């Protein structure tokens, strides 16, 4: 059975009606938003959750003894339960709220990094987003940790044999790889990677920024030790991200930032830290955004991650087919398992010109190095154009994309 035979199981009209922005026009054309991998649009449920919090029930949390503070604390802490269930984490106390995925990874590089010893190594892959690369470089330069790069195959899959070789000397303390590439769409074989890492005595971190959006995530089934994601790609607000880690690791790690709420007692001489997860949440957190992330998760789950995955698999297969027919178009990467992200180039047309001309026609895609410069170098490119899909994307939008690409090519050649 070809993937093209997947039934489109979502009620797209009803879903799209939940996203006010999808009714907007851009350059007098209806908006075709194919840049969800950069950041997704927000459903009414999320917009209302934020507005209602600010309109009816808001105060600073945790230390307040009054009604508004108690209720806001409950709403905030309730999202920890939602996120734990969303990731199938063993405990709500393993959920740390951060600004975004980037901060979550920096937190691990700082605090778990402090437990690594000079001479130990961290392995990342050739297809990492800068968010899962630069923090490890900074750790390397600060702490004498070796940084090893697991190569990818020409098809855009992680080279597991090469990874095995990198793990062989037993020096690796952490394997930190993406669970889904934001450029190639590659979904990595997380369980296999975790097993290899664990067999070599290493912990494993998955950057789930892209993948949690598209499929059901189960950190226990994946064998993950750390998992990160970012709210704004999951139809939630900006300013909120998540680090999940095994409690035992969080307990052992020193705090990242100091301040209110992360302490147990403070004297000028010495402070002691609050329990996990609060040890890692210094200062007033993104209260309103966390509550809205909860609304996003509840909303996405009401649709169902499996239905979303099926819808996007259908769309992706359809798009790969349609784009192959565009003259001069070259799809970058042929991974074994791909999420709803497609990078491409076009002979004789620079990706920036593609993006601008699509934009003139109401179509939003991304062009550039996608915060993955070393991957671009590996691919021998300086930039690609990238179309990415969300649960609100429909087949007709892919048709508009493909048709417009044909015209752009005609225009330039």
């Amino acid at each position, binding site marked *: 059975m070809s993937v093209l035979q997947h039934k489109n199981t979502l009620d797209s009209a009803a879903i799209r009606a939940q996203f006010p922005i999808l009714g907007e026009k851009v350059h007098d054309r209806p908006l075709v938003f194919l840049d969800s991998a950069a950041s997704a649009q927000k459903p009414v449920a999320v917009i209302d959750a934020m507005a209602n919090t600010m309109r009816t029930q808001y105060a600073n949390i945790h230390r307040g003894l009054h009604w508004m503070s108690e209720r806001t604390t409950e709403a905030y802490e309730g999202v920890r339960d939602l996120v734990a269930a969303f990731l199938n984490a063993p405990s709500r106390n393993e959920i740390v709220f951060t600004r975004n995925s980037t901060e979550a990874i920096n937190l691990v590089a700082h605090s778990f990094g402090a437990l690594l010893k000079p001479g130990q190594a961290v392995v990342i892959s050739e297809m990492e987003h800068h968010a899962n690369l630069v923090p490890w470089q900074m750790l390397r330069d600060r702490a004498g940790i070796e940084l090893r790069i697991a190569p990818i195959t020409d098809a855009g899959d992680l080279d597991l044999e090469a990874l095995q070789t990198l793990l062989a000397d037993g020096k690796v303390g952490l394997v930190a790889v993406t669970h889904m590439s934001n450029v190639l769409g590659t979904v990595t074989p997380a369980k296999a990677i975790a097993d290899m890492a664990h067999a070599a005595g290493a912990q494993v971190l998955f950057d789930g920024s892209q993948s949690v959006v598209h499929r059901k995530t189960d950190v226990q089934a994946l064998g993950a030790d750390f998992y990160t994601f970012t709210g704004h790609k999951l139809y939630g607000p900006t300013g909120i991200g998540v680090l999940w880690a095994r409690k035992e690791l969080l307990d052992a790690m020193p705090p990242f930032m100091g301040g209110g709420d992360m302490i147990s007692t403070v004297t000028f001489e010495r402070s002691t830290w609050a329990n996990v997860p609060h040890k890692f949440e210094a200062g007033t957190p993104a209260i309103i955004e966390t509550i809205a992330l909860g609304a996003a998760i509840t909303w996405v789950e009401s649709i169902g991650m499996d239905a979303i995955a099926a819808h996007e698999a259908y769309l992706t297969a359809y798009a790969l087919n349609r784009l192959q027919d565009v003259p001069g178009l070259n799809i970058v990467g042929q991974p074994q398992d791909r999420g709803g992200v497609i990078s491409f180039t076009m002979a004789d*047309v620079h990706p920036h010109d593609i993006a601008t*001309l699509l*934009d*003139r*026609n109401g179509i939003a895609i991304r062009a*550039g190095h996608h915060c993955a*410069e070393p991957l671009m170098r590996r691919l021998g490119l300086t930039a690609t154009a990238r179309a990415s899909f969300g649960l609100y994307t429909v087949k007709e939008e892919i048709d508009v994309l493909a048709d417009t690409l044909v015209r752009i090519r*005609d225009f330039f050649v």
Partner: protein
Amino acid sequence: MTQVLDGSALYDQLIVARSRTPLFAGRLEQAEKVGNGKNPLCGDKTRVELALDHNHISQVRHQTRGCAICLAAADLMAERILGLSPDQALKVGQRFSALLVEDTVPATHEGEFEENAALGPLMAFAPLRAHRSRIRCAELPWVALKEALSHDDV
């Protein structure tokens, strides 16, 4: 271009033509002034080489790896500054920047811009103002030019 593709206003025929077939691409055998421009955001880069004769730009070549806007901007810049003094060339550059950044197309200020600072074919880039993220593509060659002219020697 078929009529359904919106973008003709932005990608003037001149821009498309020059990006496809630049007239000033390449290197000079004896460059007196060299400047480079690089946009770290996208990796586009351009190298501008000049020769001067009696304080006038007598030869220009550019090597550009970039988008159509950047390529055409480099080529049309080369054409425009040929024969100008360095000061005159930089004035054209200022005026070009103003064209891209300001909300209204700059009128010729009396006295301030001499005739030589007129933009001519560079006016093709005016619609870029509506695409701010692309302005730096058009400015890149001028950044390289500025660098070339600010060096005392090669």
